[in-house]
């Protein structure tokens, strides 16, 4: 098959190419072009031309942002380092708060006890920008943002692939800094960033150092702690939790397209927004970690959290087995002005007390709840169970169940177990007689 012939056939099959209008096979045209190119090159070569100086280390021409060319083993990539004094704020959060990151809280958020033994200076905040959002071997991370504390500054290093060929060097660099002793913090990184990088390490035949690091992925705890928000996107959380606003941010779905354009046109303007977007993501990640860890890990500093978040924190703590801490939060909310939160926190508290064997306290709480709201089915049911199983007072239990069934606003799902209980209690009372 001669050159150009395959493409000609292809054009017809795909319908992308119309029939050649007049004369001249496409092959001729290709011939023409290359003739043209040869002639231009010949003319240019006759002139003694000062050779362009090799790109200097800092800011090679065409580099999208100010940075240095980092030469790692077997290759180079663009390296941008930003330092933020801890005196600065990210939205409403002073960066200095990072120093006080509650590691016990971080461990609870991650559900990984190992984290409690780490220091905040071991944290590596990771966020990547990628060539696609659907994953697969053909998607890579072209910008890797890494945040960490160093002396009195928060440093964000950004590793940028000016081209695909720079990936291996950047991954090697990442492997070096993500060595032992670190832990990762990300937002949805388990499913996305770290997952995607794992594939990239395989494709580049490198060992994946991230695999062995403890990983605090804030997405899961954020979903549980901030369920009141309309969604659990990082942008929503940074606004609501860190009071940080970023107008004019680049929508995530535009990022791959921008990078592909950059590869073709090398226009720095295309890429500056992506650096900014990534930088802010890393900063927000750090601030959010402090906020969420504080919410769950410390006994103080809870004053400014909305009661709903506190209740969510209590739930998460209870899931992680921190019954005392969860109970303490609930106790603080039992007289809260918000009715739903008040009711929910009392319920949770009563269950926590029950699990800890503090039955008398739980019972008085249920009685208090019924006193306040005679239709409180939760409290009535718990109390009925207690009468039946602990006190052996089937009569009192039966009264409670009858009262609940007398309430007409029961769904089928609520009613069936109650009726079952009713029959059982009646049976037991029969037998006693």
């Amino acid at each position, binding site marked *: 098959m001669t050159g150009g012939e395959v493409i000609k056939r292809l054009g017809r099959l795909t319908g992308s190419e119309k029939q050649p209008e007049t004369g001249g096979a496409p092959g001729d045209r290709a011939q023409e072009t290359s003739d043209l190119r040869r002639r231009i090159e010949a003319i240019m070569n006759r002139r003694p031309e000062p050779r362009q100086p090799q790109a200097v280390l800092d800011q090679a021409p065409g580099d999208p942002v100010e940075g240095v060319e980092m030469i790692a083993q077997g290759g180079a990539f663009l390296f941008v380092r930003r330092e933020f004094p801890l005196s600065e704020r990210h939205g409403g959060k002073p960066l200095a708060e990072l120093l006080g990151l509650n590691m016990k809280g971080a461990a609870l958020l991650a559900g990984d006890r190992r984290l409690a033994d780490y220091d905040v200076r071991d944290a590596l905040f990771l966020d990547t920008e990628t060539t696609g959002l659907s994953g697969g*071997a053909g998607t890579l991370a072209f910008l890797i943002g890494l945040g960490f504390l160093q002396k009195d500054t928060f440093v964000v290093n950004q590793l940028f692939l000016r081209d695909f060929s720079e990936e291996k060097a950047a991954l090697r660099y990442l492997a070096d800094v993500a060595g032992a002793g670190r832990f990762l913090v990300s937002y949805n990184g388990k499913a996305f960033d770290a997952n995607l990088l*794992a594939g990239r390490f395989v494709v580049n035949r490198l060992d994946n150092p991230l695999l062995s690091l403890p990983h605090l992925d804030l997405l899961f705890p954020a979903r549980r702690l901030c369920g009141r928000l309309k969604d659990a996107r990082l942008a929503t959380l940074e606004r609501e939790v860190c009071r940080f606003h970023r107008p004019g941010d680049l929508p995530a779905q535009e990022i791959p397209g921008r990078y592909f354009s950059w590869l073709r046109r090398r226009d720095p303007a295309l890429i500056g927004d992506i650096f900014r977007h990534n930088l802010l993501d890393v900063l927000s990640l750090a601030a959010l970690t402090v906020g969420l860890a504080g919410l769950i890990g410390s006994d103080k500093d809870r004053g400014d959290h909305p009661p709903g978040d506190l209740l969510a924190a209590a739930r998460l703590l209870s899931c992680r087995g921190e019954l005392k801490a969860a109970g303490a939060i609930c106790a603080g909310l039992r007289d809260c002005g918000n009715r739903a939160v008040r009711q929910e926190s009392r319920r949770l508290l009563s269950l926590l007390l029950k699990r800890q064997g503090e039955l008398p306290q739980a019972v008085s709480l249920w009685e208090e709840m019924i006193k306040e709201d005679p239709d409180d089915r939760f409290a009535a049911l718990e109390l009925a169970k207690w009468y039946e199983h602990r006190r052996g007072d089937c009569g009192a239990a039966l009264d409670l169940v009858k009262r609940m069934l007398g309430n007409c606003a029961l769904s089928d799902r609520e009613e069936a177990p109650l009726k079952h209980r009713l029959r059982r209690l009646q049976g037991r009372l029969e037998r006693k007689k």
Partner: protein
Amino acid sequence: MTRLTLGEWLARLQNRRRFMENVRAWVRTPPFEGRLADFPPGIPDRLAALFGRRGITRLYSHQARAIGLIREGKDTLIATPTASGKTLCYNLPVLEAILEDPASRALYLFPTKALAQDQREEFQSLIGDLKEDIKSHTYDGDTPDDARQAIRKQAQVVITNPDMLHTGILPHHPKWQKLFSNLKYVVIDELHVYRGVFGSHLANVIRRLVRICRFYGRDPVFICSSATIANPKEHGERLLGRRVELVSESGAPAAAKTVILINPPLVNRELGIRQSPLTVARKLASELIENGVQTIVFATSRLNVEVLTRYLKDRFPGRPIQDRFVSGYRGGYLPNLRREIEEGLREGKVMGVVSTNALELGIDIGKLEASILAGYPGTIAGTWQQAGRAGRRSGESVAILIAKSLPLDQFVVENPDYFFAASPEHCRINPDNLLILLHHIKSAAFELPFERGESFGGENLEELLGYLEEKGILHRVTDRWHWSAESYPAGEVSLRSVNPENVVVIDATETGNPKTIAEVDWDSAFTAVHEGAIYLLDSETYHVDRLELERKKAYVRKVAADYYTDAMTYTNVRVIDGFESRTEGEVIVEHGEVQVVSKVVGYKKIKFYTSENLGYGEVNLPEKDLHTTSYWFTVPKPLLDGIALTRAEIVDALSGLAYSLHHLAAVILMADLHDLDRAIGDKSGRWFVRYDQRQRQIVTNPVGGGPVGEDAFDPTIFLFDAYPGGIGFSGLLYLKHAYLLASARRLIASCPCEVGCPACVGPTLEVGTKAKEGALSILERLDR
């Protein structure tokens, strides 16, 4: 009533004079004892013992040979008849490898999910017997998300289908590092299924698989199995892109089998119309089922499956319609229903099943005694596969082929010697079909960047990479081409049909309670669920109220219709590029690239049982566009001048000629009839034939448009590959032009009908009553 055994029934049948008049062949093949061989030396004792416990103390000769080759590391293809123990040929070496090194991995490919499930159960029971912790899993669209990660890491045998390999595994190969880094065997079962477009795709998926394995430093051994086809070695080698060792001499014993070929009686000698094979099949199947002989009936279309199922259900009244004593079975049925029917067949609750070729493959439905083929399945290989459904293991069995009034069927039953001696078909693929190839180059680039000097397929790879680079899909850095688009290329094309979209059929009989009852593929949707069509499902009739192509939904309503519908299409061909051209007599014969535009314009209503034509309806659907390769020849106008027929009659004659050429081409190429299509027009696509109620005419526009002028009339008959880009038939037909025309002349001239029939020039309803005469006149003039 005393029940007859199958043997007794056959004996009685032979005494029915009227029946035997229609029998063209009655062949009883004696049982074959089989040839046994010992397990090859070195097979671990516990494996031999494992099969020993299942009654396999020695192997069939072909199994021993195949296992020997596989253990030497040779890529091996086993092409032996149905139920000759092919599964053992790969399960044994795979188990041996895993027992020796538990890190070893194997990948099994089956054409359908149902087969994969079947095979997994079989493999699991072997493992259970071995009492070893070997993990085999199916991995397909039904695999739950939370199980996927564990399967990727732990499964030693991954059982999947080509589609999943294409879209779900290869594009995510880093996640499958464990599998690919330890892959020892790749098993591909039912290799003969992978022909045409599907096969051309699979060949490319294999290219990608081999490329990925190379990246992980592996060169797995391929083990393939196939039904008996004419060119197993060639097909296997083309599909795998490497040399294979062929094992084709079966040592498996075979039960006695009676094969009967029937040509139904002529019911209308003038029109050459024979009794419908469905009628004959219904009578025979009813008798067999009454006698307690479990029977499968193969029909050649989904429609016929439904019609026949309904007939048989009517025949066994008193059983509720939901009862599956007799059941249909075809592709559009939802999986649960299919599982239920398969189980019913195994347990003997379903005594009669009417199926399309969906049951031709190795789905385990147990032993059936009788197989009735209502119409020639289109290929000799397919015929033996379907016939093999009866008496797979032992005992007496019967297979009955009933011919339709179609040239292929007639040819087969009227030439039984040819049929019994003929080699089955060739499987043809064209892995370098540009569109298919390009698609997989994209997918491969997504999986790993291409390096300069790499090869992939038979075309100039660098030029294609350059093309994709120009389109901005690939990005080149020095000598590597990287994927540089956001899309996920493997998701863009389905391996099985050109358009991956399915249309779901929704039963909206009850308002407010719509139910999905079936799916039809995109191309079939145009003819099966257009507005006004009667859609048949498990012998219920549904009227299609609305077809929403954009949303891929067809809304139907249950009705009690006494008719079904048959869609009418028009086709228009335009030549884009001629590859070769020559003149034979005054006729210009050519082959090359064409653009085919087709459109469904209406439908006929046909009454159940009587096949009476009840009327017509119009359909308004978009055109479909196909670029493919074609063979064609042009008849110059002066040649037709001497024929004493009107313009419309000449068009009919050409239609009739095209009809017989199309059918004969399928025989000559040993291809499926549906791999080819035909059209009449002129080379420039300025006019084409419009079919309406009464006559055929050539017009310039399918909807309005008047007849074209006298001078524009140089008719051309096209036979084209029914796939985008072509599958390579047209070049062969170009070479066989003279033979093709001579065969057509013999067929038409020797046909006993008076004015044309479906066995020569097509039904008179479609081509009128002058087509036979006209076609012969044209052929005579072409021969001068």
